[in-house]
């Protein structure tokens, strides 16, 4: 079952989510971020310019089982986007996770702080330019 896809801009993102909620997509089951730094080519709607980050929101219609997916582009030097906490309160932890892992600033989020990493952590681990550490192992 292919979900309906939506590609709003950053400005129309909130409006799109309100529309979806009013169209019986009652539950926002997932919100995550993808860093497209090293994989810029992808299929998007006409007129939508691919940016470095993409916020992917999956919403669910419980009455008439269906899914819809919203993909919003978020540019790099200024990765800010409106929070949809007041539309779907269930995204609170998910937006915090996206902030923690990618450094996306959600405007209007009640408590935008790190959720999985320690408070004093530097950098955003799931970004593609974040080096993963390695410990040299000597095999004998």
């Amino acid at each position, binding site marked *: 079952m292919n979900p309906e896809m939506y590609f709003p801009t950053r400005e129309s993102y909130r409006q799109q989510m309100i529309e979806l909620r009013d169209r019986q997509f009652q539950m926002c089951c997932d919100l995550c971020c993808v860093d497209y730094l090293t994989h810029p080519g992808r299929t998007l709607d006409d007129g939508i310019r691919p940016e470095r980050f993409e916020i992917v929101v*999956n919403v669910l219609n419980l009455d008439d089982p269906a899914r819809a997916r919203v993909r919003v582009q978020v540019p790099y030097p200024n990765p800010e986007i409106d929070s949809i*906490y007041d539309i779907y309160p269930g995204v609170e932890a998910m937006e915090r996770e996206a902030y923690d892992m990618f450094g996306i600033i959600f405007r209007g989020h009640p408590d935008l*702080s790190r959720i999985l990493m320690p408070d004093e952590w530097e950098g955003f681990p799931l970004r593609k330019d974040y080096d993963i550490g390695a410990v040299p192992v000597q095999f004998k």
Partner: protein
Amino acid sequence: MTDTTNTWGTAEPKQEMATRQATEEVEMQRELGEMADPRVALLDPDDINIEKLSDETMIINMGPQHPSTHGVLRLMLELNGETVIRTKSVIGYLHTGMEKTAETLSFLQGGTNVTRMDYLSPLANELAFSLAVEALGEVEIPDRATWIRMLMVELNRLSSHLTWMATNGMDLAATSMMIYGFRERERILRFFEKTTGVRMNHNFIRPGGVAADLPSGWQDDVEDILAHTSSTLDDFDQLFTGQPIFRERTEGVGIIDAKTAIALSATGPILRAAGVPWDLRRTMPYLAYSEVDFDVVVGSQGDTFDRYAVRMGELRESVRIVSQIMDKMPGGDYKTQDKKITPPPRGRIDESMEALIHHFKLYTQGFSVPPGEVYVAVESPRGELGCYMVSDGTSRPYRMHTRAPSFVNLQALPTLLRGALIADAVAIVSSVDPVMGEVDR
């Protein structure tokens, strides 16, 4: 990057709960379990007096080293006497960066990573991961593989819920329950060990099918499990359902209504206990769930007892499903014969050059899937377990995100705990059934 010295001059970092003066109103609302969502009615102000001065209440810390928090969940509670007013959960103590690790593992190796997320239902994780890879690569799997997957996942639901029964009993001071639950679970884990080689973290369900066929005589083992489980469920019923102490401790405790549960994205037994008949096995069938007959168990009150009753009912339904799977198990292959996806049998490698090449290519390079993105969800014992996967055409996922049901369900805690007694907090946390491996990933 984050500033560690906060504005109110204490040592509390931002993740933790601050005093009332230092908390902004919208965050305060969140910790009180209220939502800005217009669909959900605000909590009744007469219900509990939240307008307290800071010096009349106390913020206490529960966990992470607390036996009833099922791992390393840490709760910060603001108490008025013995009543909980505000809750904030602090998580991340078990975070090991599994989503980052997944980007460095090939599709063949990825199963070993995801199976460690929800360690009580590892097979559900593997299923979601494998279904996502198969959806991206458009891999068809044989019938028998589908039914073996269903059998294993349903048995896993049994073992996961039995563990919950055991630990929930322990949390409510029914200590013998701990032994009974784990005893029954062990029977299922023994069957898993026979089939997959290990008791947990199986890496059994893989892209393209399953790792091995069922062992000979599996019907006897499964029949034995079903017979024992059904009779123990009757025992559990007697021990718990009618027991006045248990009912007193669970009925009317930690209530959440359907609208709030939906708004908070809660899934699984929490949502069903609130009366919403939402079970992905029924509403968006995957595998062959449309071919088996089962009921979706729902509650009516949304309290801790209902969440117990829903899990109890699901145990019985899983027993029903497993016995149907035994009757309907088709013959044939247990994995796809596409040698680009699954390795050839060991014996063929000595005879066939082609098999040797396939084997070598698969284990050094892995297989690649076309670029694209997909979201696949399955009903794990804890709720909707989703896997969002982005591929850039190589043999590794470009991004793998897991929608962990425990992580999302934990958000319901402020609402569930508001107005409850501190002694009931243990029962309520237990009824949410968080698995910290999955919460922190």
